[in-house]
């Protein structure tokens, strides 16, 4: 079992950062999604055993929090979001040092540091100081330090942050390869395409509450159809009419994304447009992307009256 959380709570004074998360997940790669302030980082830190939990209980890889926090950290590789290295350390010293902190003997850590630096593509730069690295190289060095001790689970916090498209693609290719090496992955990111590419399940948080957990496929293959509509400068008005007719509508830039439940048909939307004197300019069935599903779930969480 990857995670088993029961009513996990974390309070900062009177502020409830995690409001009783209960979930069970046993998957290979899970995406941790949520807007800023949703509690993603708090949950990650709680799962790492860095934050004392205020209530409830949790298990990571079958180890209990907080009793087994040290063992959990030994089994996990953590790649933090922001830069966290001493710029005057060389890459090989940095990675080797992190290996030793995980309990590896010095010689093993040093040999292993070379191996993982070659693995992440920093073999030629391993004796360079980290301060001279580009953003992409720093991200790779952070990945290397997370991998050095051979973790069973990898926590990746925004691993493609600040990377150009090519660098991002390379990093995701690396992570995909890591995934095939029997290492489980928890990916926390704002970039939903990254989650779609790497993960098979998602955990969605909003304001400290669990919004959704489960496989991505189930999220993308709902029973409802999704239609993308554009009107002639009447999107807001049409949205109001659609919502009054019990359609679930998301405004996305200059288009409306309408979920069509199984008991309704596309003609209902067109009829409604005719009745409301709305001029339709674009009407296209769309694949339900993770982004759309995410926005819909957030809408529902913010306003429970929004029907599915």
């Amino acid at each position: 079992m990857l995670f088993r959380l029961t009513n996990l709570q974390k309070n900062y004074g009177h502020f409830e950062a995690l409001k009783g998360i209960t979930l069970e997940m046993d998957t290979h790669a899970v995406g941790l999604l949520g807007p800023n302030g949703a509690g993603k980082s708090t949950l990650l830190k709680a799962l790492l055993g860095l934050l004392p939990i205020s209530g409830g209980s949790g298990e990571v890889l079958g180890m209990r929090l907080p009793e087994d926090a040290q063992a959990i950290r030994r089994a996990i590789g953590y790649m933090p979001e922001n830069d966290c290295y001493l710029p005057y350390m060389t890459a090989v010293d940095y990675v080797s040092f992190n290996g030793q902190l995980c309990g590896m003997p010095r010689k093993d850590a040093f040999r292993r540091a070379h191996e993982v630096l070659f693995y992440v593509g920093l073999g030629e730069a391993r004796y360079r100081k980290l301060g001279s690295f580009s953003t992409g190289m720093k991200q790779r060095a952070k990945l290397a330090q997370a991998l050095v001790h051979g973790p069973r689970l990898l926590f990746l916090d925004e691993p493609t942050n600040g990377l150009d498209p090519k660098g991002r693609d390379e990093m995701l290719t690396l992570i995909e390869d890591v995934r095939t090496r029997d290492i489980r992955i928890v990916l926390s990111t704002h970039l939903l395409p990254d989650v779609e590419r790497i993960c098979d399940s998602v955990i969605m948080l909003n304001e400290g509450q669990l919004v959704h957990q489960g496989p991505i496929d189930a999220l993308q293959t709902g029973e409802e159809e999704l239609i993308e509509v554009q009107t002639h400068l009447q999107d807001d008005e049409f949205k109001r009419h659609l919502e009054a007719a019990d359609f679930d509508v998301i405004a996305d830039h200059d288009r409306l994304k309408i979920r069509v439940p199984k008991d309704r048909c596309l003609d209902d939307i067109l009829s409604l447009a005719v009745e409301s004197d709305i001029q339709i300019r674009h009407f296209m069935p769309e694949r339900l992307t993770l982004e759309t599903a995410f926005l819909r779930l957030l809408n529902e969480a913010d306003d429970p009256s929004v029907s599915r």
Partner: protein
Amino acid sequence: MAIRDQVYTRYDGTIREQYAWAVIGWTGFRTYWAFWRTKLTLLAVWLPPLFFALLVVAEYALQSQMGQLGDGEATPGVGMITLFLQVQIFSLALVYAANGCGIISDDLRHRTIQLYFSKPITRLDYGAGKYLTLLLLGTVAVIIPAGLLAMLRSAFYAQSGMLSDIVFMHIKGLLLAVLLVAVMSAMVIGLSSLTRRTGYAVLAWIGVLLVPLILHAIFGVASEGSPLAALWSLPGTTGLASQALVGGGENLPESVPIWSPFAVYAALLGAGLGSLYWRISRLEGIA
């Protein structure tokens, strides 16, 4: 840049569950050692011990010529040890100003603390490891030269009847050197724990050494040379501690309680380590 230069292999070797503090301490020392400024400052602070070594050789030559080696009643050299330790205070201050003041502040500034604590280490490991780094620097700057000088001087007295007294005196001198390094390391780590800017820690370190020296002078004049005024500064306190410990308290002024310099040391040690404790106990969300 290649995406992967070789395939990933799993690590199945040994994992130890102890001694993270030693890893942190030794790696910190090695990292400092790699700097040119560390090597240069250590080279500079070894010059005074070299001068003291010449004095020891001169003492031996002079006393051999006069045939007095070992003939004196009292154990000679207490004043020299006191002076040596007082000089080493400034040497160690230089080493720490150049290298040690970033010991915690660099971790705060570069956010490496969150990385440390994502590993299976405790706060005690972290604090002890960082303190060990400074102790190792202090060992190279002060304790090793003091040990070498003690051995040199003891060797010159090997054939005299005073050997055991001399050796015992130097062991006490070495103990005082260790205590001094421990106190100064605690002061530096305490100051470094208060800020994320190493420059501020350096300025505070200089201030912490210089301001008490000025107060020592002011109170010395105001009290018409009272020996208690020496307790205001670290060199003054070290002078009194040397007279109390190495000299056996024979030359300690009557107005100065024998415990007083050690109480000052304990206060400084406590303040420094207390500041470190304060910092690492306020790391919720990081550790």
